[in-house]
């Protein structure tokens, strides 16, 4: 084992309860532990290990940071509760934020003291995000914002949101007229309404209504009308790493089946197919990482979301169906099953992923 992984192992030994490995399914719902663990990871430099000390990191190489992420996922360390805060908002702030924005906002989001929502989808703009219509009009030193957002995860618990708004309705291409504003969700004119969920374990998503909300012009994140770039580059960090969790989740969903001696041939075949999916996610992810390290831009990256989410769904289906009627007695199985249905929707639906592969990788003509 490398020195880095040995040090991470020591950290986990101190930060997690003694019986963590044995009772991981119990601790999965322990929100207090999740909060504490995020703070401890931040302080000790294991939260984003390739970032600098003081920002949740310790300046590790990206290869070592990957090793830590893999090991953490494999050991099922407590999940970050406001995952988009650390995974998407923090990289965006670090890349595009002014020094004042970074000073005020980076540390609280990384520690989990202040949660963030992503104000992206709208009622009329889901897969077609560039068509968004929430409008921001400049008046002196504020933007006046009107419109609404939907499917905004954790908006009710969050203090802030990255709000994508139309600042230039006359731009030649719709992508070019979008800006990113930092919205204080406590501002007058903001109305957050939770949407009832299909499953308890799905993080609450909300509608956010914006009625003449005044946002200081200083809260512009990145360049005016440069919001599309802010969005895509903020998502990059997580986009390159999310397969690690995906791989482990697929493998873990079918793990109980590995303890059963009574599976028939068809079930074993399906189990093998899911194991292949899980390992294909891992090795494709690693090909992507090593490819980027050697200066390429690997096409195979584009299969990760589609394969990973579809496989996660097959895995939860297998977990339920292979247990027969007994599976209905285990509430967690159905929770996981319903939750997995979202995996092929959020972050770009499977249908959009197939368009992306067809057009960007295979070079087929656009149909729009």
């Amino acid at each position: 084992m490398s020195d880095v992984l040995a040090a991470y192992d020591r950290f986990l030994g101190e930060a997690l309860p003694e019986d963590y490995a044995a009772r991981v399914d119990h601790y999965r719902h322990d929100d207090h532990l999740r909060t504490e663990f995020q703070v401890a990871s931040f302080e000790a430099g294991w939260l984003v290990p390739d970032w600098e000390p003081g920002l949740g990191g310790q300046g590790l190489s990206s290869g070592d940071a990957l090793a830590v992420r893999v090991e953490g996922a494999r050991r099922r360390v407590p999940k970050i509760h406001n995952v988009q805060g650390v995974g998407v908002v923090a990289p965006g702030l670090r890349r595009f934020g002014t020094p004042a924005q970074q000073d005020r906002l980076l540390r609280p989001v990384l520690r989990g003291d202040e949660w963030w929502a992503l104000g992206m989808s709208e009622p009329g703009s889901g897969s077609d995000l560039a068509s968004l219509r929430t409008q921001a009009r400049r008046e002196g030193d504020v933007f006046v914002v009107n419109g609404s957002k939907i499917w905004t995860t954790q908006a009710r618990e969050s203090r802030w949101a990255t709000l994508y708004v139309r600042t230039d309705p006359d731009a030649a291409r719709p992508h070019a007229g979008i800006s990113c504003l930092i919205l204080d969700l406590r501002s007058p004119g903001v109305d957050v309404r939770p949407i009832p969920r299909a499953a308890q374990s799905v993080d609450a998503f909300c509608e956010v209504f914006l009625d003449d909300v005044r946002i200081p012009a200083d809260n512009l994140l990145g360049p005016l009308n440069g919001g599309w770039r802010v969005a895509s580059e903020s998502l990059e960090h997580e986009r390159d790493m999310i397969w690690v969790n995906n791989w482990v989740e697929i493998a873990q969903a079918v793990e109980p089946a590995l303890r059963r001696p009574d599976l028939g041939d068809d079930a074993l075949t399906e189990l093998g197919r899911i194991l292949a999916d899980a390992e294909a996610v891992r090795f494709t992810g690693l090909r992507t990482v090593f490819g980027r390290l050697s200066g390429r831009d690997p096409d195979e990256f584009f299969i990760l979301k589609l394969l990973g989410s579809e496989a996660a769904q097959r895995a939860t289906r297998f977990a339920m169906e292979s247990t027969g009627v007994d599976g209905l007695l285990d509430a967690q199985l159905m929770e996981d099953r319903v939750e997995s249905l979202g995996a092929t929707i959020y972050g770009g639906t499977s249908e959009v992923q197939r368009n992306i592969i067809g057009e960007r990788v295979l070079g087929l003509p656009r149909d729009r």
Partner: protein
Amino acid sequence: MSAVSTTTASRVHTDPSRWRDLVDSDERAEFAASVRAHLGARFGPDAARACFDAAQPAEAWREIAAADYPVIGLPEAMGGAGSIVDAVAMVEAAGPALVPLPLVSTVTAWQTVAHAGRPSEGRAYEVSSERRAALAVVDGTDELVVLDGALADEVVLVDVRGAAVRVSVADVSDAVTAVHRHVDPGRPTAVLDRTRLSETVLADGRTDVDAVLAPARTVLAADLTGVGATALDRAVRHALEREQFGKRIGAFQGIKHRLADVYVAVERARSLTRAAAVALASDGTSDLSAAELALLAKAAATDAAVDSTRAYVQVLGAMGMTFEADAHLYFRRAQQTAPFLGSAADCYRAAALVRREDHR
């Protein structure tokens, strides 16, 4: 809060750096490109089509031997150089050419010998590029069904009937009793009469059948991945040219999404195949057994090749059902290779059993 057991962490190696060889070095990428160019120019669909009317072009083996492809990735003691990762890159790059000679069967045979362990007297079995070989699994009768065995000079036998797996080699001489060319005449199936073979035992020290067959499965997976990738490439080219209803058919989501799914299948197969090769080359230092990875790779590559070549026929429309179009040649190559060393379903199932065993 106190210490968790550190043994759980150190038992399994998850350090990703050991998988670095998943991605080709510049040198290996150049080598693969040269193989693709050489074999593509020398063989290709027309050479495969010619095998329907004439015998396989046996004399052309000289050129394959001269390039030393058959011994690439073998240990130096056997007369080779490099690792099985190089062999896998070479075999995948040969895919577009539909080579009508027993290159893949020779590589499966010699790679099996290379990983089977040394014979008791400690001498490695030396091979030469001039000799063509094939692999036979002995699990029942003395009638051995062998992939691409018609031109083989030697046959490597993996006898799985006893407690220990026995790997032996024999000259084929007059043991071929039948050759079936109807699926893919460029890569026919031969039937060998085992009672006519005089076998020399090379290794009998291992008990795990799937471990002994792992190198051969990995090589077949590379072949199937190469065939699948080629069929996809050709289907995409057609979808970019053919117009119906006033636009190129690749713009329709019915076609686009089908081909996107094929792309996923091909890359899934490629990732698992490379991983199996890296695991074999690093000899048991990975957290997954090479036996399991090779089973997953063979299964995934079989799925990818059969689905991709089928999609290639479909995208061509009625043209895909003609002798002159190349699609059926790739489809035949995929169907011919698919059942050897276990169907996709067999391999998935066996992999699940290996994982269950390791899980205990």
